[in-house]
């Protein structure tokens, strides 16, 4: 789209200007740059950075080394903190199922809207929900998940006349696999396979298994669940996921996507992004001890 020579350069069409206004409306709130810079620089001395020669900073003396090890042991044994105030990537009590009785951990969602015979919830695949999961409304209304999207789900009331109201809180049925998935912080829904609607949930492959498979790098991710179909929007019909179309199965170990290594979640995200516009996906995997290439024309 070239700027009209009769108007200011880089002008937007009316349609583009409307879209730009929508985007600007949802801009992040202002960042506190001054405080951010100060906080970053204050944290730097605690971080160890490789020198230009690639060497880690060395400790001044064996005594200092012993002090560091002692601190690490103490921190590992220290009780976990409040998840609301813990810094990112710090394990907290809420994440450790052993630290919290299961009956006290409940997954809740809210009713976003009622659409025909469906109750639309504000959580989906990324929150651990699956087709068939059962939930209960505030007055005992029973729901069954009928379709899922990444961040929403459509549920069917078991009694059509007994649907929870908009805004009502519904809970995952106690003891259900949905509750277990919600409790399990290391798998089921909260990883790039769910976020990017790929249709598979992964776990890191145990290092011993990686060695048995002869993986040189010792790192890989393994499919723990496949999701056959996902709805892209609240009103659209579910469509087969890329994982289903590729024929991915539980237990498959990913090797690379279009030649890009996939050894952990970060590389998987990167590979998905880089292959986003590729007309063909070739996913190399290990199934048992066999190496296969799954392909998908897009």
């Amino acid at each position, binding site marked *: 789209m070239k700027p009209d020579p009769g108007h200011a350069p880089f002008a937007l069409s009316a349609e583009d200007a409307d879209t730009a206004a929508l985007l600007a409306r949802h801009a992040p709130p202002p*960042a506190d740059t001054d405080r951010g810079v100060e906080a970053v620089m204050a944290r730097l001395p605690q971080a160890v950075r490789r020198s230009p020669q690639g060497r880690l900073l060395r400790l001044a003396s064996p005594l200092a080394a012993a002090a560091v090890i002692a601190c690490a042991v103490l921190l590992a044994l220290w009780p976990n903190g409040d998840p609301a105030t813990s810094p990112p990537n710090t394990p907290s009590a809420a994440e450790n199922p052993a630290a919290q009785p299961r009956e006290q951990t409940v997954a809740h969602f809210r009713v976003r809207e009622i659409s025909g015979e469906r109750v639309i919830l504000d959580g989906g695949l990324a929150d651990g929900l699956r087709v068939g999961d059962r939930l209960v409304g505030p007055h005992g209304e029973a729901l069954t998940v009928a379709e899922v999207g990444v961040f929403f789900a459509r549920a069917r009331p078991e009694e059509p006349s007994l649907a929870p109201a908009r805004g009502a809180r519904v809970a995952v049925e106690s003891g259900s696999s949905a509750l277990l998935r919600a409790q399990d912080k290391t798998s089921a829904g909260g990883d790039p396979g769910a976020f990017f609607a790929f249709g598979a949930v992964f776990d890191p492959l145990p290092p011993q298994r990686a060695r048995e498979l002869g993986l040189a790098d010792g790192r890989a991710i393994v499919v723990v669940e496949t999701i056959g179909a996902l709805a892209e929007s609240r009103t659209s019909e579910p469509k087969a996921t890329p994982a289903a179309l590729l024929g991915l199965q539980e237990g498959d170990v990913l090797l690379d996507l279009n030649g890009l290594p996939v050894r952990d979640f970060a590389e998987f995200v990167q590979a998905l992004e880089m292959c986003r516009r590729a007309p063909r996906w070739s996913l190399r995997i290990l199934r048992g001890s066999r190496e296969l290439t799954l392909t998908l024309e897009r």
Partner: protein
Amino acid sequence: MDDTGPDDADLVERAKRGDRDAFAALVRRYYRTAYAAAWGVLGRADEAEEISQAAFVQAWEKLEKLRDAGAVASWIWRIARDTALKYLRKHRRMRPTASPPETGAETSPPEGELVRGEERQAVLGAMERLPEDMRDALRMRFWEELDYAAMAQRTGASETALYQRVCRGLKKLRDFLGEGA
């Protein structure tokens, strides 16, 4: 944002040699970039601030891995976004909506808040689906409010090329948002 003074390549080279002032200048220059990336995933300002800071600490540790000093903005964006995604996965929080904090009483959020929350989720989701160059261009133009000259200085692309990315990005965004209508 102040784009005068040393360029990114100069600051990166100095920071690689341990110059903390140079790194602080980079942090100041790209803090909003990291913040926008983190906020796009998390939707909460307090968490976005925390993740942004964590991203820069990671960047300090990994500076030697940055081969193209001219791509530091995109590099910071990716670190912040990956860190935010990992944080979201680990803490298993629901994607933020307009719902009010949990209370003991059963209350319904105002309809306007639900609609705005839905719209924000749709916009953020559509932004995530854009090609990286278009997403960066839209973010710089409408979230960081840079003019095309500043965008060109940051990216090395021409102002015309950036304008085209903005226009194509807006159209693609409209297409994605239209799919959910």
